[in-house]
């Protein structure tokens, strides 16, 4: 786990609210989740200046929070709410600390008309139907704040059973429109937080599997004594250490570099998929059942692997960039990042 002060201070709250040995049920709307406790500690506004109505704390603190949320498989929109608040801050729009916020993960086609109303579809908004407000970037690159109650919602769920709704807006009066972060900056920030969340879930998966391999007896000895099972445990540790390292690397940068985020996304998503396979293999049939903890983590990992860019598109961008660069090795060894091919 990260050694951030924030992490240490919150360890008890997270363990009590989301016990690490419990198998999660399916998520419902936000009102049925521990959102109010989460918001009660002002965690939904970490990384936002107090002057802008946030809770303060650095981006590194927020990354640590996302990692912790991943480790505990929390069922509230941590990444989405904090990214929404950041979008509002960047656009200079007021942040209502009492409200819950989300952002769309999927494509949007939002247009602000001449009359000032907003129309379009927001696809895959986590808890979209049960949050108060949704923040998105429209086709002209403006930050748009809308109330979910003004939208027609089509309920959906992600692979982990968490709400991921679609919102249809027809001539809706927005709660705010202003110029702020670009869609690309939004994706990079959210992707970085998703990597931290993935790292946390990978740590939890590695811990759970190591413990299970030490306890479960087959053929007269713990399965962890078999080299073939050890290989799975080792791979899980590798995926967890590596992905945590990627998240930490992004967290210490004063600003996110597109190259770094995209490279980290590719690796993190691949690691998640590899880890899910190994964890289930080591667990045998028990890991495939919903009364056991593992699915809570692996279903989230599978969901997050495709968020904010699929690895095939991201790899293609990196590859196109490398094919034009003066040196392949220097892209790895230098701190000056090349512009990414689009």
């Amino acid at each position, binding site marked *: 786990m990260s050694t951030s002060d924030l992490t240490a201070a919150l360890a008890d709250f997270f363990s009590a609210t989301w016990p690490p040995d419990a198998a999660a049920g399916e998520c419902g709307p936000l009102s049925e989740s521990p959102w109010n406790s989460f918001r009660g500690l002002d965690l939904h506004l970490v990384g936002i200046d107090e002057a802008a109505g946030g809770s303060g704390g650095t981006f590194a603190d927020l990354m640590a929070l996302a990692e912790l949320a991943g480790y505990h498989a929390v069922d509230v929109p941590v990444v989405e709410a904090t990214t929404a608040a950041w979008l509002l801050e960047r656009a200079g729009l007021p942040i209502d600390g009492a409200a819950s916020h989300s952002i769309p993960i999927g494509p949007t086609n939002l247009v602000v008309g001449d009359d000032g109303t907003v129309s379009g579809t927001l696809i895959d908004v986590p808890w979209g139907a049960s949050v108060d407000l949704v923040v998105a970037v429209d086709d002209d690159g403006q930050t748009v704040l809308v109330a979910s109650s003004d939208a027609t919602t089509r309920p959906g769920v992600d692979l982990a059973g968490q709400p991921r709704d679609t919102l249809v807006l027809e001539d809706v009066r927005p709660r705010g429109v202003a110029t702020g972060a670009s869609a690309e900056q939004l994706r990079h920030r959210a992707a970085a937080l998703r990597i931290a969340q993935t790292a946390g879930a990978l740590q939890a998966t590695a811990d759970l599997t190591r413990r299970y391999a030490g306890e479960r007896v087959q053929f007269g000895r713990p399965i962890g004594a078999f080299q073939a099972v050890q290989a799975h445990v080792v791979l899980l540790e590798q995926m967890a250490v590596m992905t945590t390292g990627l998240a930490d690397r992004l967290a210490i940068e004063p600003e996110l570099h597109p190259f770094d985020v995209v490279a980290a996304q590719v690796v993190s998503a691949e690691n998640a998929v590899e880890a899910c396979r190994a964890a289930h293999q080591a667990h045998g049939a028990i890991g495939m059942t919903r009364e056991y903890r593992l699915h809570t983590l692996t279903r989230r990992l599978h969901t997050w692997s495709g968020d904010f860019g699929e690895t095939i598109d991201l790899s293609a961008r990196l*590859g196109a960039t490398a*094919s034009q660069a003066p040196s*392949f*090795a220097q892209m790895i060894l230098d701190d000056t990042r090349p512009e990414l091919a689009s």
Partner: protein
Amino acid sequence: MNLAPTKLTDEERNLQTEVRAFLDERLPPGTYPLGLGMAGDVDPDFSRDLAAQGWVGMALPTEYGGGGRTAVERQIVVEELLTRGAPIGFHWTADRQSGLNILHNGTEEQRRELLPGIARGEYSFAIGMSEPDAGSDLASLRSKAVREGNTWHVNGTKIWTSGAATATHILGLFRTSDDRHGGMTQFIIPAGTPGMRISPIPFIDGTQHFCEVVFDDLQLSDAARLGEVGAGWGQNTSELALERGGVDRWMSLMPILERWATTETVRDSAAAQIDLGRILARLWAYRGMSLSIARLVDAGRFPVVEAALVKEMATQFEQESLALVRRHYGRAPSLNSADPWEALLAQAILVAPSWTLRGGTTEILRSVISKGLVQR
């Protein structure tokens, strides 16, 4: 287990720039045989020229002629050498591990005699560890050193000893008693010592760096002993940790990737770009981990498990990357091609299985990591 992120300082970045400028001048493309990582060509002249810049024996203290530099600084130099497939074969082993082993375990006399020569790029070490009946299981070594007064009589056979035919010294591990782990001792044997027969074993790609070394009543004075009698196992284990940690373990393919990235094959193929991007992302991630490990070494830590953890997956990924390049190449490349890059690709295809063997097989490393996890 946690690998803290780290970045290069301005001074470190300057060193990188200096090394690149030197290599641009000293090794223009086409003037040297391209090598695959640490299996680069043996070129004593190049080793001496590199040493003259202060870039051999960097980790050794200045009082013994070394650079007194950090592990991170050494990694910076190594990265540039590996990227170009530089002819590093002559000084490689001495630079990476034998020098430090002598520094930590040698007598003052040994340090004064050997370390300056290593730092000048004049001494080349080969490691006599493996034997025909003991591969990864060093505890079952059988080659013996038997003491008679002040003289040791050495008998036995070492095998898979890289660079022995061109080395100025062999650093060998020999059984000095029947105690499984406590009965082994290291000795430094100068090339040309009577009683030693070195025969190259043709490697799978036709090269001759791999050797068999037979000792037939070779006699050594006790001054050739490195460390205490019976301390060889521990010394050797520490050496293996040095062997595993660095980027040299997973940068073998770089000269191939460096060129492949900008070939027409890649420029014209969306599929190849996807594979290239994937390779780039993952190598970028491994590099960050190796740098973190180097910082741990500089902080006085001994990150044995971390090093094994990175080496195990990075070397496997190297092989996977080669398979991807090969798939886009479209036909079997030839070892005898007039195009040096094609010949190098052919060589890589043949030798790639060794990448997950040398310095500890995948299976042995997993066991090291697994035990490390239990202890934490």
